[in-house]
């Protein structure tokens, strides 16, 4: 269980981006961090990942402060998928996925057959195994995203455990920062399908930050609504997503309904709220 308690964070010389945020990513949970641009979503995700240290408050992994756990141990449990990945050199897809094995190898150790097997089943889990030998730079945005997710899965050993079917639970955590921001509609849907199937089959915990209400509503079991660095509401998706909260969060009037054919919560934005949002 990954937990943030009263986290305050400010970039140097600026006003705080996070002002006392508490939230948790339970084991096998699927959490969406929702909020408008500048609400602190990405910063919260970076704090959860241990990439930045909170000025006050704590981030704990299984009740242990992230600051007290070695990078290597954190990396084996928790992987981050950034919005976009640009490589400085022309690596192949399999090389990129094998980079996820870094925390599992000692200083001069070379990836062995087992690492390769893990990397390939991670590619298979995201439906990108046929891209294995392609140059990463030649992939589409959606393909790159899935390959980076595969790299993350290889890193937290998520697919490895799948081999042993008796091992039903996996304590790996996947954090995704605005995963749909750079993708067009078809790739967004594809990514949602990949994440949903990963979560169901591998039982890993997933947390995504996004400003896309429908993406989060259709995917996440629990939501954290973030506004101006504070938690506006959190809880199960069905409870949290109400027209009032959407108005408060985005300043937008919206209908929240269950889609007749998918059965998923669907948000239809209607217009901007005239008065200033509460």
């Amino acid at each position, binding site marked *: 269980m990954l937990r943030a308690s009263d986290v305050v964070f400010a970039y140097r010389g600026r006003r705080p981006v996070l002002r006392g945020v508490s939230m948790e990513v339970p084991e096998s949970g699927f959490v969406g961090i929702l909020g408008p641009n500048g609400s602190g979503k990405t910063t919260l995700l*970076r704090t959860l*990942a*241990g*990439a930045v240290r909170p000025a006050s408050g704590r981030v704990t992994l299984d009740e242990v402060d992230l600051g007290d756990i070695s*990078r*290597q141990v*954190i*990396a*084996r449990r*928790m*992987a*981050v998928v*950034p919005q976009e*990945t*640009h*490589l*400085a*050199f*022309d*690596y*192949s897809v*399999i*090389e*990129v996925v094998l*980079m*996820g094995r*870094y*925390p599992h*190898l000692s*200083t*001069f150790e*070379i*990836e062995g*057959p087992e690492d*390769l097997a893990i990397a390939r089943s991670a590619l298979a889990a995201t439906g990108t195994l046929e891209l294995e*030998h392609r140059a990463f730079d030649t992939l589409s945005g959606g393909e790159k995203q899935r390959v980076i997710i595969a790299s993350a899965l290889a*890193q937290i050993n998520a697919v490895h455990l799948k081999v042993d079917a008796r091992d039903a639970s996996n304590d790996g955590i996947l954090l995704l920062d605005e995963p749909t921001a750079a993708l067009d509609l078809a790739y967004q849907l594809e990514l949602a399908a990949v994440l949903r199937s990963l979560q169901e089959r591998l039982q890993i915990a997933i947390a995504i930050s996004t400003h896309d209400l429908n993406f989060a509503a259709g995917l996440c079991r629990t939501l954290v609504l973030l506004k101006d660095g504070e938690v506006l509401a959190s809880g199960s998706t069905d409870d949290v997503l109400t027209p009032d909260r959407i108005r408060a969060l985005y300043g937008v009037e919206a209908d929240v309904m269950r889609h007749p054919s998918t059965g998923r919560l669907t948000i239809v934005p209607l217009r901007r709220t005239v008065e200033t949002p509460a």
Partner: protein
Amino acid sequence: MTAPLGRRLALTMTGFGVLAMAAVVTAPLVGSTSISLRRAFSTTVPFADNPDAQIFFIARLPRTLAGALVGSMLASSGVVFQGLLRNPLATPFTLGVSAGAALGAMLAITFGWTFAFAGIAAAPAPSFVGSLAAVAIVYALARARHRGLSTNVLLLAGVTMNAFFSALILFVQYFANFSETYRILHWLMGDLDISSYEPIVTALPLVALSLAVFAWLARPLNLLSLDTESAATRGLDVPRAQRAAFLSASLATGAAVSVGGPIGFIGIVVPHLVRLLVGPDHRLVLPASALFGAAFLIACDVVARTVMAPIELPVGVITALVGGPFFLWLLVRKR
């Protein structure tokens, strides 16, 4: 399927190792006076009566070894700078690091400073300090932009640093006397005509240290090709890797410049050709570039010695004639 890394590494090391060895052995045989390898290594003729041995061991072998040392250090530090700054156009020369090292060495030559460390003459110390100063400026620039230096910023910073250090070099040269000026000018053009083993031996500790750090750096540099935050979330201690890279690349550049002067373009031509052959993995690119850099600079030096014989050109002229157009081609191709 690409072969496992272990096999590729063995293949790469063997291939480029043979190439480097071949260059070291054959280069001393080429020159205005032809000599025979068998006579040079003859045990029956005393050294004093054996001109082949004298030419081989006194005139040409030190020069060849200097080429090997300088070439491998400039090429591998080029790889490290490129990985660190996430930009394939970064090299000790284009960043102004070589110029910084040259200024340090110039100051020491002109004012007759000598350095010793733990009883060993540390002639490369001033050029190391010079390259470190230049690197500190690059480091500060890179820190200000965590996604890596853009090509524009990188090139402009390099041009500025080179202009700045060149001005200081000219200023220092103003204080040198006539014969020193001639020597310095030759060295500033990049010259391997050292005719003694001493500069090589004094540079060896720096070379060994930087090679050891490079070996550790190879895998971290792969991760840094993603971006610093992705590297960190994969378990890399990024600040430590960056410090190690900046320091070891400065050491290597300092060692190279102290021996051969600021020879340009090795750090870009060699890693680029190597990547075309072995791919981008730094665990292959770094050792391969070190070996190929040695062979490449030795070959350039053979051309420099023979193309206008009996006049010997500074090797820096040859590498610039090859590397300048190559650099422009890369720049055009990049966008």
